[in-house]
């Protein structure tokens, strides 16, 4: 199933690098433009959600694990990066700030990756529903800890985070995420993710260590979720523990499912559509979430392989 992605050919992989450079350059150019504040905010939400969905797709889509705790990783990254900025970047001179912002983002990603390692280890023994509940539990534990930690504002939230996130930063990092996930999965090493998803026993009999691949998927996925969290923190300038609850994780899972598990381009497209959908539905905001729920149910009935999963064979 889904064993190849649109960029799976080696030649296409070289193309991917060109695309990456082009995307990053476009992002940098974009950040010089002047935009309406509302559209700008929505566009940054889109970019952040692309990072979240594409990184979760590595865990849920390519490797076949079922993680319900992506918002937890995002929270770890968001709080780490925000705290770092509040302590160091605010006092630093103006020119040093972009560098410090990058450091904050990478630090947030790294701490999130560590927590990904901590969650990946139980996957040594757990499968399916049991793994799903452990990841769900992890997300809830993170939320409860943050809610009680005075250093990050506890239940009243973390305020006054500097606004460093720009459209350029967001889309440059989204491009990097897409590039890393696509290249990883299409590398010789990365074929192992798909092998583990398709058949763990067969994979391990071919010399692939499933545990290693699962933990790697969790660590890499968590790293980018942490980056997305950092961007989110410096975009909204305010963090509340309730923003990282179970529902946020579900939102990201729905993006992955809507796009089509294990299809990076489709998942990114789904992230765009699902971020814009609430904005489009603003006039009927009363019914917005009801429609969202019906969309999930209808989608699972009509197109369980994903709304944007074109061109290849459907789920067995």
């Amino acid at each position, binding site marked *: 199933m889904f064993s190849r992605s649109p960029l799976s050919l080696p030649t296409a992989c070289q193309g991917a690098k060109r695309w990456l450079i082009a995307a990053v350059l476009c992002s940098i150019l974009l950040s010089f433009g002047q935009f309406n504040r509302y559209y700008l905010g929505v566009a940054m939400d889109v970019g952040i959600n692309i990072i979240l969905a594409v990184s979760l797709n590595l865990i849920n889509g390519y490797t076949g694990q*079922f993680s319900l705790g992506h918002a937890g990783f995002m929270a770890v990254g968001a709080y780490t990066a925000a705290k770092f900025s509040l302590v160091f970047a605010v006092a630093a001179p103006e020119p040093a700030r972009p560098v410090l912002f990058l450091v904050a983002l990478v630090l947030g990603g790294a701490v999130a990756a560590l927590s990904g390692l901590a969650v990946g280890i*139980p996957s040594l*023994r*757990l499968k*399916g*529903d*049991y793994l*799903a*509940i*452990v990841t*769900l*539990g*992890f997300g*809830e*534990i993170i*939320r*409860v*800890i943050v*809610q*009680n930690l005075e250093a990050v504002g506890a239940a009243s939230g973390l305020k006054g985070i500097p606004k460093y996130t720009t459209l350029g930063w967001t889309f440059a990092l989204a491009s990097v995420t897409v590039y890393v996930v696509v290249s990883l999965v299409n590398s010789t090493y990365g074929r192992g993710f798909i092998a583990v998803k398709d058949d763990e026993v067969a994979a391990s009999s071919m010399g692939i260590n499933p545990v290693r691949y699962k933990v790697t998927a969790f660590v890499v996925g968590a790293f980018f979720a942490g980056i997305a969290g950092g961007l989110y923190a410096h975009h909204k300038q305010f963090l509340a523990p309730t923003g990282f609850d*179970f529902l946020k994780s*579900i939102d990201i*899972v*729905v993006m992955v*499912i809507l796009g089509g598990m294990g299809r990076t381009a489709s998942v990114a497209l789904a992230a765009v559509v699902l971020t814009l959908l609430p904005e489009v539905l603003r006039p009927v905001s*009363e*019914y917005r*979430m*009801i429609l*969202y*729920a*019906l*969309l*999930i*149910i209808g989608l*699972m*009935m009509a197109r*369980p392989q994903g709304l944007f999963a074109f061109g290849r064979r459907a*789920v067995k």
Partner: protein
Amino acid sequence: MEFLQQLINGLALGSIYALIALGYTMVYGVLRFINFAHSDVLMLGAFSAYYLAPAVARVLPLPSIGGALVVGLLACLICAGLGVLIERLAYRPLRSRPKLTVLITAIGVSLFIEYTGQHRAVFGADTKRFPELMPGTEFHLGSLIVGSNDLVVLVTTLLLLAGLWFIVHRTKVGTAMRAVSHNQQAAALMGVDINRIIAFTFALGSALAAVAGILYALKAPGIDPLMGVQPGLRAFIAAVLGGIGNLPGAALGGLVIGLLETFAGGISGLSNYRDGIAFAILILILLFRPAGLLGKVTVEKV
């Protein structure tokens, strides 16, 4: 004394979790997926009672034991019907699909019920005061205070557990349920009507959820469309803790989570971490017993 008091409170809370967890575990037994909408059936049970109470009060005196029984039974019937309806409309068309598809659909159904309930034309998002269904008193045993509600919870749970045990082990439909959970195809070949048994399982689980919802509402300050989420999550943990698909496991898991929550709440400094502790314990136990406490000991699943 302090310890005994906490024990009683913990047991009462744990019994409610046990009733909810049984619904999760029964559905898992026959269909092998976690029915996320179960916590919302619990909420619908409490709301059924909320709207039924004034109607019943015209015929029977309320609060009274008889009136409460009538309200409870009617709420059970409504929820059993809703459970069957959810299964028929949302889950049956997907029965041959991958489990993940059904799981996501269940999340969708859960969100649908919650958001529809919050719409002002349905229940509204505000918290409503739950009517008093039973005359409440407190019994003082030395320095121990036992609320009549706690006793009602404990007695009801015990009776329902006994009833459930009887249905599953001593009736024809119960035997069929066990057969379906053991091997669906073989059961079908033996002449078991799979659709009917699955519908019955949903009805039974939803009726238990309705009772749990009413009992929970009696102890809670009020009811709202999201009231099922927290107890639902705890009961879900309880079901996995006991070994999902295992009936005694769900009851045991419910009691363990209820007691843990109550005792952790009594320790100052830990009480704020209550929500996290249940999960932390679950993760620890799953590391050592990946199939839950009773997951492997009993082969029989319902």
